């Protein structure tokens, strides 16, 4: 019998990896908002991410540290999700004829699957393949040279903005419950006031992240950033 072999341990793993994602996403949002400051600021930021910590770290070192941590967190998050999801299915194998419960846990799980698929697309789009999605924009060589040009060309397309807004809606819903849930799992909500505060923090973080990420694509779509 060990505390490590419990469902609460899986939940703690889910909570800690989730909070690391929140920290990362806030940094990511800060970087994205640099697009409002123009090409030099945005491309300069992208380059600084790679030279950060030199000469202690090699070129791109910090970026790779983050990538490794993110992959480890993703493995932990998905592993605990799969274990808890399958356990929940077995625990309620026979269903009720009439159901009147909230749909949050279903939203969390399928929303999480959607976010996972979106992240796959997002990495192909801006990091791994960098396809020329906008035929009227710069060519592949110009996109590779300027992250700013790549972002602007992409978000001049309404359907691309739509994909990202859908993903942000899913992320917002996921965080509204997930950030509260992580605090509850870590045992930080032991009073009624603490419980309300944790829910408030969850909604605030979700709103800040959803709005903060939506600003650059919308600004580009409506021609405020060119």
């Amino acid at each position: 019998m060990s505390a490590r072999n419990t469902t609460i341990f899986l939940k703690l793993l889910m909570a800690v990896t989730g909070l690391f994602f929140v920290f990362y996403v806030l940094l990511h949002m800060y970087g994205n908002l640099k697009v409002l400051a123009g090409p030099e600021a945005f491309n300069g930021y992208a380059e600084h991410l790679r030279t950060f910590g030199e000469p202690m770290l090699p070129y791109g070192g910090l970026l790779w540290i983050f990538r490794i941590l993110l992959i480890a967190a993703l493995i932990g998050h998905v592993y605990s999700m799969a274990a808890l999801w399958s356990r929940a299915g077995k625990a309620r194998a026979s269903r009720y004829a009439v159901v009147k419960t909230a749909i949050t846990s279903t939203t969390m799980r399928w929303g999480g699957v959607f976010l996972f698929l979106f992240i796959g697309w997002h990495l192909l789009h801006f990091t791994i393949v960098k396809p020329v999605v906008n035929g009227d924009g710069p060519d592949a060589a110009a996109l590779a040279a300027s992250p700013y040009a790549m972002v602007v060309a992409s978000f001049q397309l309404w359907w691309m903005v739509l994909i990202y807004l859908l993903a942000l809606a899913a992320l917002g819903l996921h965080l509204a419950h997930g950030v509260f849930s992580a605090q509850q799992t870590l045992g930080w909500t032991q009073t009624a006031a603490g419980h309300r505060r944790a829910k408030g923090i969850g909604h605030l973080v979700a709103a800040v992240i959803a709005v903060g990420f939506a600003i650059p694509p919308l600004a580009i779509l409506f021609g405020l950033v060119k």
Partner: protein
Amino acid sequence: MDLTLKIWRQAGPRDKGKLVTYQVEDISPDMSFLEMLDVLNERLNAKGEEPVAFDSDCREGICGMCGLMISGQAHGPEKTTTCQLHMRSFSDGETITIEPWRAEAFPVIRDLVVNRSAFDRIIQAGGFISVNTGSAPDAHATPVPKPNAERAFVAAECIGCGACVAACPNASGMLFMGAKVTHLSELPQGQPERMARVVSMVSTHDAEGFGGCTNIGECSKACPKGIPQDVISTLNRDLRMALSSGH
């Protein structure tokens, strides 16, 4: 009142079971829900049909024995136990679906009766304190700060009816277990076995086949005693502390 009842009938643990529709007429709005079922059973008996099996004991809302899923809500639309639910909470002509608690950890014995021994085994795993019995100690021999005493009392209100498990989409027993752990963790008498208790109880909970908690709070909404969700936070914290102290 005239009502249409759709009741889960299942002859035994291995029977597949199905919903059977019954019409009941002339029900008084002042009857409790269980009295309404008693009336139905009397009429079924008179017709030579098998009466509907359901659990009840004190019928005062304090023993935790009764519990039915009533049109998708554990213990029905009011915040109380099924025995303290009255027919005035329903409208004339309403169709009411009555099902047993559904969880693999609570197997159906017959009709609406489920086996909740899994809760007993969780208590046996650690929901106690080890003391020598004898003459009762003076009530003020061990001082307890008032906020801790109050929270322990709130948690101790849990009657173990299982509505939390029934209402949880994951069929998790965390609200029940959180109440028991919080009750003892808030008191000085609960401290010596605190870390071993939480690990033992949670391990038993998991082995019994209950699901994990997703913190959505359907349990607290269904709880006839209004046990707050924050007892699960205390349970989680105790497990985290047990983890870091090497349990």
